[in-house]
């Protein structure tokens, strides 16, 4: 047997799941797609007293457009996001990012909620949530609360969710029609976690930029919103010099760590290069 022993529960409602989490007082873990948690269990790096499996709660899987945003049930599979016409039309950056999330047979199980709750610093969805200024809805013993992207990611693999809370919904504002968007990533192999990725949205009005959004993956413990680079574009427009300056600024705004995959310098360099590429490609699809 590879995983350590645990009690296994497969509740059919969120209330039941919350009651189970409360009963174990922080010693239970939620099991979503299992694509990050099961490897940790197989290595026995995680030893929860119990698993609370959300896979039998059908009400947690949906994609809905409402009030200027698209809402996703936490258990919506990455593969469902990939094929959703609503996502393609309303939050195309997420559709593009999904093709970078792992591989086909992983996306069939992996969930949007799990990817965000897991908070891997090299994962694409947290970068997209940050760039789009999305939010998540958490439910716990004290009821429901909304957490903005900027308050969610704390450090490596750590969010501001409490152990007895469940992330139930992810909300992304609809991207204005005609906005440019791009996700640029460098990884060793397709489907690997990013060494660096840049998520980007630009809204243009001729040569003016009315809104720029840039966020990173792989440049430190949490996604970094490149606000000072965005400001350059919003102030100076979308000419070559401004794009160049924004890319340079982007690389100064991150302080990545070195690991076996890449040095800190290389990651900083990639941040500039990928920002430039993302902006160029985003402008290619932008109208207005």
């Amino acid at each position, binding site marked *: 047997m590879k995983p350590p022993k645990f009690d296994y529960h497969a509740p059919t409602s969120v209330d039941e799941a919350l009651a189970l989490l409360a009963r174990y007082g922080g010693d239970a873990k939620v099991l979503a797609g299992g694509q990050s948690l099961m490897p940790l269990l197989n290595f026995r790096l995680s030893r929860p007293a119990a*698993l609370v499996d959300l896979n039998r709660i059908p009400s947690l899987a949906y994609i809905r457009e409402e009030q200027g945003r698209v809402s996703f049930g936490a258990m919506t599979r990455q593969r469902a996001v990939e094929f959703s016409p609503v996502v393609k039309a309303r939050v195309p950056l997420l559709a593009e990012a999904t093709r970078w999330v792992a591989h086909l047979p992983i996306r069939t199980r992996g969930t949007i909620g799990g990817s965000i709750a897991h908070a891997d610093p090299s994962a694409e969805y947290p970068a997209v949530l940050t760039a789009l200024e999305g939010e998540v809805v958490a439910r716990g013993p004290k009821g429901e609360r909304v957490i903005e992207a900027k308050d969610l990611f704390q450090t490596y693999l750590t969010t501001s969710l409490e152990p007895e809370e469940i992330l139930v919904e992810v909300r992304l504002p609809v991207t204005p029609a005609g906005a440019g968007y791009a996700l640029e990533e460098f990884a060793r192999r397709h489907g690997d976690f990013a060494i660096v990725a840049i998520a980007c949205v630009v809204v243009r009005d001729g040569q003016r930029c009315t809104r720029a959004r840039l966020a990173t993956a792989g440049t430190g413990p949490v996604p970094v919103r490149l606000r000072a680079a965005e400001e350059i574009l919003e102030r100076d427009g979308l000419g070559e010099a401004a794009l160049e300056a924004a890319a340079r600024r982007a690389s100064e705004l991150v302080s990545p760590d070195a690991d076996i995959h890449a040095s800190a310098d290389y990651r900083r360099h990639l941040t500039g290069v990928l920002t430039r590429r993302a902006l160029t490609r985003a402008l290619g699809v932008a109208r207005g």
Partner: protein
Amino acid sequence: MADLVTVRLKVNGVEREGRCEPRKLLVDFLREDLGLTGTHVGCEHGICGACTILLDGQAARSCIMLAVQADGAELMTVEGLAQDGKLHPLQEAFREHHGLQCGFCTPGMLMTSLDLLRTNPTPTDEEIREGISAVLCRCTGYQGIVNAVRAAARTPGGSR
């Protein structure tokens, strides 16, 4: 011994049942409890893809899923591809185009390719490469596999 759970599921069209601990991985359940050793187990943590099966019609890694989670599900493993002693068109194509050498990755390659062709019946070479990047092969250098999947896509019934 921890409490055992009963797992009932349909594999390759046949109702099967077994009892195991909740922590038993689906791949081990298939191999050890149901005797279906066609599904291989390599890395045991989701990287290599050797253990890929179809779960309710979609490719999934059986090493990072619990057997108990498959209770009530419909599975297809590599053993379910050939019908009445006749190889599936994908298997024919792998044989024809040198899509395998040692064969260790082959069950995972076949099941992944099957989902790929079902969801994208006319993939470009780029899309084939992206699809099979989910499975590691130490032997072929992949070119034969790409050729095989491309050929199967052009064969009637290749994504059956």
